[in-house]
């Protein structure tokens, strides 16, 4: 019996066999949940799983289990949370090596003591693990200035099906020795191997951080302002646009982020995060405000200290901020050339309105990333909801592709996943991707079916 073999590897106390409903993926309940304590145990588990052809779902805190198509099979959920140590931290080199199961928040707390941070601000800031963040290529508003996962991971350790353990990259910040395998595993959703260790590039904390909020009556002016800034000498860390629905949810949940009611009028909210030397933060606030006034802004707020932190925590954790009821929310992410954000916003609104829906939308506009939230409840019962949403998603996806971008459904009810591919088309490189999957996971035991095109 598999349980016995698994228990021999990790110990009985590290196996769960009952009440596994909360580990289900799209409703498919695993037979076993294991909590390995070290890389050797992960390796032994992967050897066993490959021999026995067990479908393995790697997992950190489980914050992104909604991502992906419906799995073909789920046997073992492999939880990495016990691999949670900081293995090396070299403040003078601005690098750290950590185990994959460490919480981002725990790492940040430790780095903060040395006035440093890992410059990544993905959703689920208090629960997400580093391994999960890298495996799902999860990023946040700060990517405009600091880059994304692919820019910040310099080394990786991976356990492959069959149990082989490999390393790639290194601990130094510049490295061209061999293929850059870090990139291959980043965003691969655990379909090529299980990430157990990561070496990261760190940054010093900025001297000053402030937020400038501006309100516009039209989306167009907010979007043009973002482009004006991103194509100028200014150096904003984040440039965001929130539609009126998104702003309403945020300010209702926490009125303190709008202390002077400066952005109370209905319309579109623009937000800039400005960080660095105090002189250049002040100068940027003045300059952006001035540009905003030239574009007819109807209100402004500057957030500092706790309010600044609170505002960005809400933006960073947008799935929690904007999904009032997670199981009844569809969350889509469009990635577009930055110049297309305005057109995209307007057209998606029209598509929504054509079905009497008003999605909540917000954007890391400087980076061309747009999130769209639909509440299932907005469609009256008795109507075929899934048909309506699959129609809308196909329309939005076509639009994204037309703009040379992509659209991924990050969270949706299983019923909808039966009708729409969550990833969308991959194009003419699909064959290479499938061959890579075959090379690294010949028996298809890792997350079968969840990734692109059945991988």
């Amino acid at each position: 019996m598999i349980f016995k073999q698994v228990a021999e590897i990790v110990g009985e106390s590290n196996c769960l066999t009952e009440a596994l409903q909360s580990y289900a993926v799209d409703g498919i309940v695993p037979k076993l949940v294991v909590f390995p304590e070290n890389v050797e145990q992960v390796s032994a588990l992967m050897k066993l799983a490959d021999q026995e052809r067990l479908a393995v779902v790697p997992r950190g805190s489980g914050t992104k289990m909604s991502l992906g198509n419906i799995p073909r099979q789920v046997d073992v959920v492999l939880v990495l949370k016990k691999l949670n140590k900081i293995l090396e931290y070299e403040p003078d080199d601005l690098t750290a090596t950590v185990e994959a199961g460490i919480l981002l928040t725990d790492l940040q707390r430790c780095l903060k003591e040395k006035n440093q941070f890992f410059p990544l601000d993905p959703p689920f800031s208090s629960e997400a693990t580093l391994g999960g963040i890298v495996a799902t290529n999860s990023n946040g508003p700060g990517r405009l200035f600091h880059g994304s996962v692919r820019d910040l991971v310099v080394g990786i350790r991976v356990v492959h099906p069959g149990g082989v353990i490999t390393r790639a990259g290194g601990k130094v910040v510049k490295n061209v020795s061999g293929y850059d395998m870090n990139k291959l595993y980043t965003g691969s959703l655990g379909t090529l191997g299980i990430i157990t260790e990561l070496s990261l590039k760190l940054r010093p904390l900025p001297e000053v951080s402030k937020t400038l909020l501006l309100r516009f009556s039209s989306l167009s002016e907010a979007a043009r302002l973002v482009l004006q800034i991103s194509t100028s000498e200014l150096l904003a860390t984040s440039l965001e646009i929130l539609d009126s629905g998104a702003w309403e949810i945020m300010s209702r949940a926490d009125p303190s982020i709008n202390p002077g009611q400066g952005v109370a009028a209905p319309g579109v909210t623009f937000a800039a995060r400005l960080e660095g030397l105090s002189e250049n933060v002040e100068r940027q606030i003045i300059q952006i405000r001035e540009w905003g006034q030239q574009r007819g802004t109807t209100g402004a707020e500057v957030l500092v200290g706790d309010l600044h932190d609170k505002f960005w925590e809400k933006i960073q954790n947008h799935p929690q901020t904007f999904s009032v009821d997670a199981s009844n929310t569809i969350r889509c992410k469009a990635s577009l050339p930055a110049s297309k954000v305005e057109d995209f916003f307007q057209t998606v609104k029209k598509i929504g309105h054509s079905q009497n829906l008003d999605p909540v939308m917000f954007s890391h506009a400087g980076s061309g990333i747009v999130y769209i939230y639909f509440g299932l409840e907005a469609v009256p019962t008795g109507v075929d909801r899934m048909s309506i949403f699959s129609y809308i998603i196909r329309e939005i996806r076509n639009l994204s592709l037309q703009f040379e971008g992509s659209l991924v459904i990050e969270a949706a009810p299983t019923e909808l996943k039966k009708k729409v591919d969550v990833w969308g088309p991959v194009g003419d490189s699909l064959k290479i991707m499938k061959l890579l999957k075959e090379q690294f996971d010949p028996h298809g035991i890792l997350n079968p079916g969840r990734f692109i095109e059945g991988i």
Partner: protein
Amino acid sequence: MDKKSLIDELAQIVGVENVFHEPEDLITYQYDAYLSRAMPDFVVFPTTTEQVSKILKVASREKVPFVARGAGTGISGGAIPVKGGIVVALSRMNKILEIDFESRRARVQPGVINLDLSHAMKDKGFHYIPDPASQQSCTIGGNVAENAGGPHCLAYGVTTNHVLGLTVVLPNGEIIHTGGKALDYPGYDLTGLLVGSEGTLGIVTEIIVRIEHRPEAVKTLLASFSSMLDAAKTVSAIIASGTIPAALEMMDKPAIEAVEAFAHAGYPVEAAAVLLIELEGLKDGMDRLAKKIVEICQSHKAIEVKVAQNEQERMQLWKGRKCAAGAIGRICNKYYLHDCVVPRNKLVAVLSEIYQIAEKYQVQVANVFHAGDGNLHPLVPMDMSDRDQVERALRAGDEILKCCIQAGGTLSGEHGIGLEKNELMPLIFNEADLTAMKKVKAVFNPEDLCNPGKIFPTPGRCLEVTQRPR
């Protein structure tokens, strides 16, 4: 297929004037900037992706090896056709296809010269950031193959951080597209995997890169020290202080002397080391930041800190750094240029050891390098007519590399593995690590026709330094 028919078939694809096959035409295509050479059988000059595709279809049908070539400035032998065959010279695919300022992207052919791209955007105040020393002649395609770096990569990242999409002709002639103008396309990050693959996975025929607005203000400082170790400590102190300069370069005494004799950049020849520090960003606060850097230098016993007062003085300071390798080339008949990387908090220890190693083997060593990211470039001068001295220089080089690796470093920071260090790969990667990379190669390049003999150690070869090809 005989040679004549192959020439005819290639000529049908690119035109007869774009196929070289006479020995006298092939001579310049047997080497790049590495020490080794090998003669190709043909050189072809395609101008379109479709032509590259047709060429590779012929090559794979006839099992002829092929190598892509940009400007031939690579220093690890990436463009050397070790097994002969076809050199696919991309120098005529040199068009900038699109510049989208609003989205901050440019789409270029691989033969575009690095600096030409920045020049094309100068009027709009934009530039392409990665700036390898050879940026006046090297191509973006070559930069992609080698994942090239440069002084300003300290703050902004190397080539891979600036490349977002590729059109690639696979070794079997199939054309694929990876990434694009936007971020986060679904599927595996093949763009990231291809950048730095040294032309062993296919031939890149179009590249989408990030472009950025130039910084508003630049401040360049030159700090000189009476001891190399003080300079190295200063680098660590600057990084640890929470400032990441745009560039942080270091040169030691032999390098300074060579540079001054050649370029008269105004470096103090009595100094044991200089640091060239460049700050970029908004003008506001820049003076305060510069003052902080000056203070760090002074507290680490800098004998002088010069701040460039205008663009001319700034260019003068950079002139010394940029011509350093050339200047050293003037005083010796050949040198071995290394490219190892160490953690930045190990700089002091590793540099001391490098000098000890040089002393032990009685060779000279000059250090000119990207100190800010720990990327060392020890240059070991060699007199090729003195067999014994060459031998000592190579042994010293190997020991330097091993010392860097022991300090937690790596084989190459920006030059690539190529022919130069493929036999040394087992020093940092075990069999399983290399097998994972070979799986990638097997997917893209199963017949090993595409740039054979690079990156991976040759089976059955041992690590003995004297057996390395050169």
